[in-house]
């Protein structure tokens, strides 16, 4: 039950495109809320809300450094290079499955043509 709840929270956190962009930015390294807000046309408080959702979902962690609170990916969640590779692998693999089908169709067409007298 608890595991389901935590998974729900993770997926709800990932459902928002801005939050996915924030995660992709943090995959490149630590950043403050101000730095995270820069590429977006939304206010810093709005970014802070996204950061809170991500933090509650356990996807990112924040540390205190004077008045700043830099964020980074939670190591256990998504920070491993292997995780990115896994995602990229899936995206590429769906391309290559389509290419398999395309190649199979071409081979079939050629065979049919070859059978014609």
């Amino acid at each position, binding site marked *: 039950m608890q595991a389901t709840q935590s998974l729900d929270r993770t997926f709800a956190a990932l459902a928002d495109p801005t939050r996915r*962009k924030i995660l992709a930015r943090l995959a490149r390294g630590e950043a403050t809320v101000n730095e995270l807000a820069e590429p977006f046309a939304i206010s810093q408080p709005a970014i802070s809300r996204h950061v809170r959702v991500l933090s509650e979902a356990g996807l990112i962690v924040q540390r205190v450094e004077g008045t700043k609170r830099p964020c980074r990916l939670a190591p256990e969640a998504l920070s491993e290079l292997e995780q990115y590779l896994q995602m990229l692998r899936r995206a590429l693999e769906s391309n290559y499955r389509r290419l398999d089908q395309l190649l199979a169709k071409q081979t079939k067409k050629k065979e049919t043509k070859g059978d014609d007298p």
Partner: protein
Amino acid sequence: MSKMTLTTEGETQVIVTRRFAAPPEAVFRAHIDPTLIQQWCLGPDGWTMPVCVNEGKPGGKIRYEWSDGKGGGFFLTGELLEVDPPHRTVHVERMHLPDPTPDNRVITTFAADGAGTLMTMRMSLPDADTRKAMLASGMEHGMEASYARLERLSGWKAAA
């Protein structure tokens, strides 16, 4: 069955290999003929490639534009440096998101493997940070696809 491998080498390279049940000529053509590329090089389900330019010769231009059908999308531009059918191509490419990413130099080889083909794509990024950013952007788009599939599987909808 695991046909594809994706590994990193050194600080800046990413290597993808994949086997296909078709001869190198056919696999090579599918990588260079725009009407074929448009049928498979689409990324997550639901995306299309409305614009596909690949001039197929050394010095030739590449431009791929992807759309999610909901007004979202991005594009890639590049130049072909070497074209040696059906064995090998070398090109440089960059994504426009919309700011251009640093150039990715890609060597793709197509080797006969029994009745099929072993394709190897060796990508070289300018530095380690760029490679990290590229893989992270793969994560962003891959996540979108996984999320969409999950939604379909479970009937689960995100709260807006």
